[in-house]
């Protein structure tokens, strides 16, 4: 198989999979199943059942919890001049899914949100969501810097670290996140080595042996 044929084969298999999925999409039950499975990865039968189960579950987070998650996510990843915010990239919806898929996150998230509300209640007599922006930031600044934080707020620090990590991983695994971070892979190509200007920047070069032995392509 030459390169052109193999890329063609690749495109055809992806398209065919999509066509089959939509052709099967005739009754409502199938349609729900398709929604649960999305355009997602290959699934063996046990995985299909697992996805279906998650899709049928009630929301884990309450409306108030989701509101707090959205506020926190946008504090962690706000819109800037490079990309949008966490909520622009639907990070709260991702977090709602992932706690169902990974129940180990459920108690730390629920308890952490509650910890945050109680902290705000004690300070400002309001829940986190009901606080104004500057009040919220006073509490966030207590828990956002693990090395500086006071011992009495370490539970809050741990919660905020989890929230930061879920937000970042949820954001950078979207199309918006790929563009922001500058990930340029996942496209068929011919690897021809490190670009010349980059080699020069770091004072590196390929040896004659490498140039002779390694595969190279006309650019």
């Amino acid at each position, binding site marked *: 198989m030459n390169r052109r044929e193999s890329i063609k084969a690749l495109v055809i298999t992806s398209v065919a999979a999509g066509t089959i999925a939509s052709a099967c999409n005739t009754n409502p039950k199938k349609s729900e199943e398709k929604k649960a499975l999305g355009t997602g990865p290959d699934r063996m039968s046990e*995985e299909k059942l697992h996805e279906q189960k998650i899709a049928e579950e009630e929301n884990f987070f309450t409306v108030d919890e989701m509101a707090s998650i959205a506020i926190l996510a946008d504090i962690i990843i706000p819109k800037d001049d490079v990309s949008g915010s966490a909520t622009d990239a639907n990070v709260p919806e991702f977090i709602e899914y992932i706690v169902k898929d990974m129940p180990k996150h459920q108690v730390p998230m629920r308890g952490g949100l509650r910890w945050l509300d109680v902290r705000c209640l004690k300070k400002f007599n309001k829940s986190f969501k009901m606080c104004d922006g500057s009040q919220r930031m006073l509490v966030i600044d207590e828990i956002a810097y693990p090395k500086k934080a006071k011992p009495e707020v370490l539970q809050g620090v741990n919660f905020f*670290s989890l929230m930061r990590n879920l937000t970042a991983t949820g954001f950078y695994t979207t199309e918006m996140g790929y563009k922001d971070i500058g990930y340029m*892979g996942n496209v068929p190509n011919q*690897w021809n080595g490190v670009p010349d200007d980059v080699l020069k920047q770091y004072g590196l070069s390929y040896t004659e042996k490498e140039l002779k032995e*390694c595969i190279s392509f006309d650019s």
Partner: protein
Amino acid sequence: MCALQLKQQAKSYDAVIVGSGAGGGMAAYVLAASGLKVCLLEAGPNYDPAVNSSQMKNAWESPRRGASTKFRPFGDFDGCYWGWEIEGEPYTQGPNSNWEWWRARMVGGRTNHWGRISLRFGPDDFKRKSIDGLGDDWPIGYDDVKPYYDKIDRLIGIFGTNENFYNAPDGIFLPPPKPRLHELFIKRAAVNIGIPVIPSRLSILTKPINKDRGACFYCAQCNRSCKVYADFSSSSVLIKPAIETGNVDLITNAMVREVILDRDGLAKGVSYVNKEDMQEYEVHGRTVILAASACESARLMLNSKSTKYPNGIGNSSGVVGKYLHDSTGADMGGIIPELFDRKRYNEDGVGGLHVYTPWWLDNKKLDFPRGYHIEYGGGFGMPVYGFNWGIEKLNGTFNIKGQQKEYGGYGASLKQDYRHLFGAHVGMAGRGEGIAREDNFCEIDNDVVDKFGIPVLKFHTSWSDYEINQAKHMKETFKEILHSMGAVVTWGGDDGPENNYGLHNPGNIIHEAGTVRMGNNPKTSVLNKYSQSHDVKNLFCVDGGQFVSQADKNITWTILALSMRASEYIISEMKKNNL
């Protein structure tokens, strides 16, 4: 459900093969090509990378963004069904044992997702006892296996370079890809301190080798299996053409229970449970070839008890299940500050490392008897679940755009940190040889069965000082290399004697071998040098079980070579009417 009954297949085969991974796939390929009729049994469902691979999917196409599940421990896009645990199929541990057992259930087995690191054993690797007095020598040497390595290089395709290293033998190679940026950093740093770094040897096609398989298009996703068959999976490269001969009946979802005997004490075939209708079946053949993986093949033999073979078929020696060993493994990673804010470009490359380090030292001068090789990683990987996790332990370490940051944080400043650090990470993994010991073993647990009623394995494994000292040496080496390239160690740097220097649990590296070992003496080995049972001449084992020792190499290329060799022997013995 209909009443339980035993069903016999009317058709009898020349060979009944259990398992469709590297060993079983190669046996099916060679036997079918010679015109023999083969029944290939696989415990999992069908799998064809062209149809099933999740190649080229982006993270957001998985609702969990590629995170792992118990169904796919290496992530949602990975090309392996199941792994460390399978629902309804437990295994148990003896006191203080912590064996980790990976089981794939699918056509092609774990070759659909493996690292494609395809290393030949060297001349020394077959004769370790003669060198250091530990374990045993193989009944064969490099010269016996070399012709098969050569054939496999040509048949399957592998890239690499001829380097004239005595114990990392050269092969018939396609051109390798050029090193990536971090690999050039590693090479410069390691070579400066006397550690060789050479092109890796992976079974990936940098050029097309036939009309059925495409060439690599550099997506770095070999672990998802390849839709154009540009890398080696047993499913695409061996089983597909084997079936196309018309000589192979593939039975999927067939969980084999035991090897059954005829009146002369020879293997008559196997019995299995069909996971779809849950009925019990038998299939008969002139030969039975086990390739279910080292531990599953041992389990099958131990569970095949009869008056004639009370300890399990082919186990008059009592050796089945013993000498279980896995590669050793320890890892470390760091950040190269010089690579902060790198220019962005696509550096996916092939799936895996473009360079590696073969074992380069003399064990006579060290406090551990066997070597290890080093695998390298790093660069601009695809963001998937876990990406950018743990920044709160990282960003305060570095000066970022002229600013000493506080650990953690949020907002625009945090987004800048993520961008700054992307692509500056480098990691290294030592993969070494442990000693095959009689007291590292698996046996049948007399108390526990799986959901099919098949008695399960109980493991008894531990590391000795040989492996622990080797892990210590790995860690020291990694620190030196990282230091030499100006990197800051960010993980794996704090391990010490309290945790065996970060040595992974046995089994964790997924190179298990040794449970059905070959040898010249029927009292101390299960198979002869043609992978044939000493006790039952029409019973063979062609997976990792037959290994006498592991070598500091990944074992797949040798499984393929030995399976091809055993299959040619079977053909020749059948022609002579010896089978």
